[in-house]
């Protein structure tokens, strides 16, 4: 049955819709603008003619971008670092979170306190560099994934989620003869899919976007992740006044402006594509971690 709304209610709804529409546009337009400038003619971008729709669209910028062999190598590296890094993150975060979530674990308050301290204080860049070096990890994949094996914030969310699982479930498994590994991997983790899916997203995004530690610990160009290569293109630009001399005005189909946009699209697209697959767990996972203590 259709319920008649009051004028005030309808007015409120209208204003609400308009306001949220505005907020959505403000949030989406920058991404959309990057997309349309990346496929627009460089000259139009340079002259500030691109606002709502692409001007003289072409894929020249992406062709130029992908002509760089380093990008493919870097893309592969990023993929490996993200997959391996996220796996290690989840494994170690769960291994750390599980004992801290058990009330029967002696000293868990003290250990939790010690771990939480690392959220506020760190040794700093140079001590960390020396540790990585002395462990022989320089210029290896381990230097990229192991120093960040556990993110304290994420681990605490997982711990809180594990804590919410009834103790009786664990006890019944113990009566059946299950040890802690079996309990963790066969019971706790399967029932915590929501929070773990959220953590996959958090960790994967962080690995995908990371460039600083990679720049610091990797010396070989062929091991660089995508972000280092693309950041360099973004910051230092790619083209010069020479573009004109090379081919006259026609060569302006690609400029620093279009390239910058293409780089941003190229970088964000993979992670945006992952988002829909974990989105259904996202809100649920965060809520579990944050509200129940």
């Amino acid at each position, binding site marked *: 049955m259709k319920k008649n709304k009051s004028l005030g209610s309808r007015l409120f709804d209208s204003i609400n819709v308009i306001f949220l529409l505005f907020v959505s546009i403000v949030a989406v337009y920058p991404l959309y603008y990057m997309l349309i400038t990346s496929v627009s003619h460089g000259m139009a971008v340079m002259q500030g003619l691109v606002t709502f729709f692409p001007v003289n669209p072409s894929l020249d910028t992406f062709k130029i971008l992908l002509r760089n062999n380093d990008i493919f190598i870097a893309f592969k590296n990023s993929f490996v670092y993200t997959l391996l890094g996220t796996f290690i993150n989840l494994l170690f975060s769960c291994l750390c979170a599980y004992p801290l979530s058990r009330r029967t674990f002696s000293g868990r308050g003290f250990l939790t306190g010690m771990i939480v301290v690392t959220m506020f204080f760190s040794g700093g860049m140079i001590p960390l560099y020396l540790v990585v070096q002395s462990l022989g990890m*320089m*210029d290896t994949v381990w230097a990229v994934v192991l120093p960040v094996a556990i993110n304290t914030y994420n681990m605490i969310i997982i711990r809180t989620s594990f804590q919410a699982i009834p103790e009786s479930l664990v006890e019944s498994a113990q009566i059946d003869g299950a040890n802690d590994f079996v309990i963790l991997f066969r019971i706790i983790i399967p029932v915590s899919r929501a929070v773990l899916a959220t953590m996959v997203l958090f960790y994967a995004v962080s690995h995908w976007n990371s460039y600083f530690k990679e720049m610091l610990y990797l010396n070989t160009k062929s091991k660089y992740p995508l972000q280092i290569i693309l950041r360099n293109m973004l910051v230092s630009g790619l083209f010069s006044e020479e573009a004109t001399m090379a081919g006259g005005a026609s060569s302006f189909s690609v400029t620093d402006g279009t390239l910058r946009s293409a780089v941003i699209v190229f970088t964000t697209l993979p992670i945006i594509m992952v988002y829909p697959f974990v989105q259904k767990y996202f809100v649920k996972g965060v809520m579990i971690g944050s509200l129940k203590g």
Partner: protein
Amino acid sequence: MKVKWKLLFPAILSAVSMLGGCQPQEPAGSSAPVTSPASSTPSTAGTADAAGSDGSASTYLSDTLAELHVMCEDSASAPLLVDSETIKYVEEYLNVKIILEAVPSASYADKKKVLISTDNMPDIMKINLSDLRQFAREGMFVNLSENKERLPNFFTVLDQNPDIYKLSIDGEMFSFPTMRRPSAGDDPNGQQPVIRSDLIKEYGLEYPDSFEELYEVLKVFKQNRPGSIPLTNRKGGNTSGTQKVLDTMAYPLGSGSKMYYDQDIGGGQYVYGPAHENFKEVLRYLNQLYAEGLLDPDYATNTSDIWKEKMSSGKALMYFDNTGFRMDFEAALKTLEPNATYDVFPTMENSFGQRRNFIFEQHWSNSHYVVASSSENIDLALAYMDWSFGEQGCDILNYGVPGVHFDKINGVPVMKTSVWDAFIAAGSNGPSYDLQSKLGIGLPAFTPYVDVGASELMKNYMLDGEAAERSEATAAMNRADTGLRRPVYDPPLSQEDNERYNQLLSAVENIVVPEFDKYIMGLEPIENYDAVIERARTAGAQEMEDIFNRANEAYQ
């Protein structure tokens, strides 16, 4: 409650696995692998330079194949290739394998600082002047002056460019500054005025000969194009738009935007521009332009992209900056205004009756290569660096493989046009950058002694008839322009003076920098700037000048 200590196991396992997962490996870049002992470099660069280019054993710097780890900045426009043709040739020719650690320029400063702080430098590393002054005294870099007899080529080049000795630390050279070998195509240019020359003609004007005439020209532009911005600018790399305007215009207007050597004051002395009487004229002039809408109202906040947009769309009509951009702007603008042209014009006379402007410095005084004191390959590194300052080294590192990429004609290296043609035909947006990247030559590569002939002449080679004529006309105009001057390097300061200077500079900048916009925008009458000058001089500007002038006298 039953205590379950065994739950500690997973937590401990996580930590142990983390450590155990790392196989010890030799940290790359922290030490060179195979070294050639000092005795293996008996002839150093002298022999290598005198030998033929056939890659014979006499050209070797090392008896066995040796490696040198070198860390350089990697730019996106001309990426460093670890296996460029020149690197491969050098390996054959000198028996030295250059292991390039290409760190993206955007992150170079961070990595460099960590490596220096942890004493983990590669054999050779690129640093800037500030690093040199900060760390040379701490013994981080090899003292080149103590090895003078092993660096004949380098010190010969230094003696030909005595100003470079100003980059020494306490009278000793600790670095190989990136230096320029004079070459064809290497014409003087700088941050000069670039104006819409088609509008000059259209409105029946002449190129301005003085800043007062420029003011009149800009007024005519504004009258005829009320919506336009007659003069615009961009922000600097690490500086504000205001600072960029002052950096490009203060000296031509008779003062300076920071500490600089002024030949026209007291027969030549170092002056801190913003704390000098003449600076008022700079502010007065800029205020005059601003008040009448002739200077971009967004001059303080313009980014590089906004500047490009304004210049490419006809919104702005003139700038003081790198003149090379005018070709981009002109080509873009021609799609909207087919007759539009941008041209450089000669140095204008200022209100003090001077004609002066800086051109870019001859060498790259902020770019240095140093040999790490902790390197296990110091002898080889010195030999290699000296070879690169010799004639053959310079030829190879700037033109590629002899006979393949260039020929020596009458003692001058000449790039083969077939090489240029191949890169032009490849259809990239920057053929000369591609040339330098693929061959591993010139300034973007690991080249301490730079000859820009290969890339600059290639740019000229690419120009069509009319563009080539205009380019040559600009070059000729600059060569004939007596107002264009090379900046004078700062004198070498003692550690004590350097610390004192930096301390004073910070205090003085805190006084003057916030004032610039107030006077340019007319929020304060220009007479009030006397008080700013007074405060700045009392706070240390006078002492800063004294430190520089005393150091300069001592250096002389």
